[in-house]
């Protein structure tokens, strides 16, 4: 009886510590995401200047990738790519164990790779940085392994909330993608971390939305068909992206291990060459997404940027640079959607919304098709626009895109990327649901390097 009371007491104290840590982790993850964003911007400004010459556009990614290639091979081998699959693997297979050097290495490599012009996003790395810091903090305060594991999605949600300024979408992403269960008992913790993170982020950067989006709505019921077409196109483009990414990455992985050190530089050369002619594909590229959302781009430009960004992201990612596919999927989606919007707006026999509305839906559609997180996508668009009106077309397009992507590429891209590294997430993911996850007796092991 006395023993049971003591155990109860200990559990309660552990719970209180965990709650306190949730807030602290949310704040620190949020700060890391803000710092990461600012560091990328300043690095980019420093390396390229205000209006770079063609030589500089070519040399910066090439030279930077030679440096990051060495660092990624010799010092931080576990920080290549997005960071989301690695975080998922750490959560499901390693009790949330992420080496302390990972968040710091990811920060440095992400800043250098994205800042030097690689066509990659900052959100995936932010997730890994947030999760890595959470894991490190959890271990430092000597939480039991199960609790360290629980802190991982908390850190991920906090970082994503700050990176996107979308707290609800961040919570959903942590549940939908990292944990893989929308009913996970960690809902409360992720919400707390997400809110703490967003408060910190807004107190530093202000409450400015990521994009300026005019109020869009469904103008005519027949427009739903146009959005359905957008969903189909979005599905096809998502599929092309996933297949292309996996194919080229497979090719790079088949090259001799000794070439690993120069693989990022190969990507750097290709990106440098592309940047000379199309600087709009540089880095995160939200400036151009914003233009597409406001209907400021022309049809030809959007089609071209959609194709080029897709190709550039595949090259940047496959060659082993550090950066995510969140932002590129939004970019490609906005361009594809915007292009379809222009066609619909010009030729449809019924009144339609501006092309910007299609760009917005396209953004969510590609996100749903590539990342396979449809609920996150819907809420993210809602949080960006603060408007319910566009949600119905978005859901229609999302579902179609998801269905097509899932049909032709049954394994989600993050899981397929892990599989290429010899990590099979699926059985663990299904057998050991997070609801049942407790302190694990399995030894902590490092997730194999994913590149």
């Amino acid at each position: 009886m006395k023993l049971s009371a003591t155990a109860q007491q200990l559990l309660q104290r552990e719970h209180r510590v965990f709650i306190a840590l949730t807030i602290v982790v949310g704040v620190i993850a949020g700060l890391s995401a803000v710092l990461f964003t600012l560091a990328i911007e300043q690095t980019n400004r420093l390396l390229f200047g205000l209006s770079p010459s063609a030589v500089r556009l070519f040399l910066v990614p090439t030279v930077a990738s030679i440096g990051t290639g060495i660092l990624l091979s010799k010092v931080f081998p576990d920080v290549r790519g997005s960071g989301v699959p690695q975080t998922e693997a750490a959560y499901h297979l390693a009790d949330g164990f992420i080496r302390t050097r990972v968040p710091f290495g990811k920060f440095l490599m992400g800043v250098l790779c994205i800042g030097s012009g690689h066509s990659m996003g900052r959100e995936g790395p932010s997730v890994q940085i947030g999760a890595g810091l959470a894991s490190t903090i959890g271990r430092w305060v000597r939480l039991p392994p199960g609790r360290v594991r629980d802190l991982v999605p908390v850190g991920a949600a906090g970082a994503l909330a700050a990176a996107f300024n979308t707290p609800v979408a961040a919570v959903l992403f942590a549940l939908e993608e990292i944990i893989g269960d929308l009913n996970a008992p960690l809902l409360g913790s992720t919400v707390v971390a997400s809110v703490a993170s967003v408060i910190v982020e807004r107190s530093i950067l202000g409450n400015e939305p990521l994009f300026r989006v005019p109020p869009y709505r469904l103008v005519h019921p027949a427009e739903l068909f146009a959005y359905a077409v957008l969903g189909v196109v979005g599905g096809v483009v998502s599929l092309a992206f996933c297949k292309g990414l996996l194919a080229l990455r497979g090719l790079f992985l088949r090259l001799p291990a000794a070439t690993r050190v120069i693989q990022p530089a190969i990507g750097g050369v290709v990106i440098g060459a592309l940047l000379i002619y199309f600087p709009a594909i540089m880095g995160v590229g939200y400036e151009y997404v914003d233009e597409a959302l406001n209907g400021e781009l022309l049809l030809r430009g959007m089609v071209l940027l959609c194709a080029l960004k897709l190709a550039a992201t595949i090259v940047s990612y496959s060659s082993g640079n550090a950066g995510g596919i969140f932002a590129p999927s939004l970019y490609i989606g906005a361009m594809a959607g915007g292009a379809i919007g222009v066609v619909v707006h010009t030729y449809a026999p019924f009144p339609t919304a501006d092309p910007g509305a299609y760009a917005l839906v396209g953004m969510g559609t590609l996100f749903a098709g590539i990342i396979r997180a449809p609920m996150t996508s819907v809420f993210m668009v809602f949080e960006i626009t603060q408007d319910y009106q566009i949600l119905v077309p978005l859901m229609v397009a999302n579902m179609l895109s998801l269905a097509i992507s899932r049909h032709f590429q049954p394994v989600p891209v993050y899981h397929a990327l892990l599989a290429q590294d010899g990590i099979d997430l699926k059985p663990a993911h299904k057998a050991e649901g997070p609801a049942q996850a407790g302190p694990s007796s399995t030894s902590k092991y490092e997730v194999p390097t994913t590149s």
Partner: protein
Amino acid sequence: MDRTRLRHEIAQLAALIGIALSVFFLTRMFATYTRTVRVRDAAEWYNRGQAALTRGDALAATEDFRRATARNRSDRRYTLALARALETSGNLDAAERALLALREFAPEDADINFELAQTAGARGDVPDAVRYYRNALYAPAAAADADLRRHVRLQLVAFLLAHGDRTRAQSELLAAAADAAPDADSAVALGDLFSEAGDFGRAEEQYVRAVRLAPQSEIARLIPVNDPLARRIPNVERERRLGADLQVVQHRLAGCATTGRAADAVRSAAEQIARFTSETALRSDPDTLNDGLALIYEGEHTALEACGNGTPIDRALLVIGRLHGAAVP
């Protein structure tokens, strides 16, 4: 043991909070620096856009202003410049969207409403353009800034006249005349607009006002050297001036191509002057001078009604007629 652990946990949490606070202030400093760089870059892009506009490259200007806007969204000058550049390059929809987005946050901003009026006008949307012009006209900034108010009102009048709405243009012109700036250029501009609106009497009044307001203005300078009834000039000069003025009117009437009743009036005036010049010896006696001057005024007035505003010398001849007591026919 338990207490030690508790103390240890509290110390760890305190350390984490300390780290978080330090990183917070560091990040805030970094954010402030980044914002400063962004603002500086935005200003640089804005200047480049202005330079591109000056050399007539609206597309390059649009790109530059876009970059300025992306880096500093809070400075509405950049969005306004972007909208103007988009309008110049013919991308009216995008210009309007940019302005409407800006208007969301400042619905009573005179500049934004004025630009929106121009965009709507360029699109040919008269009701929207008039609505935005009026919004600009009655915006708090326009109420406080007389120059802005006058400029907007004159633009509105010009727009209404261009779209054939003379009635509303005349009522706005009356308001404009009551609020007119005390300078000759404004008076001439008002006079021109009155004449376009068909109110020729008020048009001439504005020309006379222009001469009185600015003796150094172009019209005012033309009067003393063209007035045949000017004081202290030799008779030979009076005859020369009358002859020259009659030639100016004849030239103006000859170039005034019109149809219908106006054409008849122009033809009749031209014939009267032709008869006068052929039948009357141009002497400096008061009757000849007065009759000649009356014909000049009538001819100019007829041309004004039939063919709109003429050159400064035509305006000067109208003013000379009015100054010597000619009544509006």
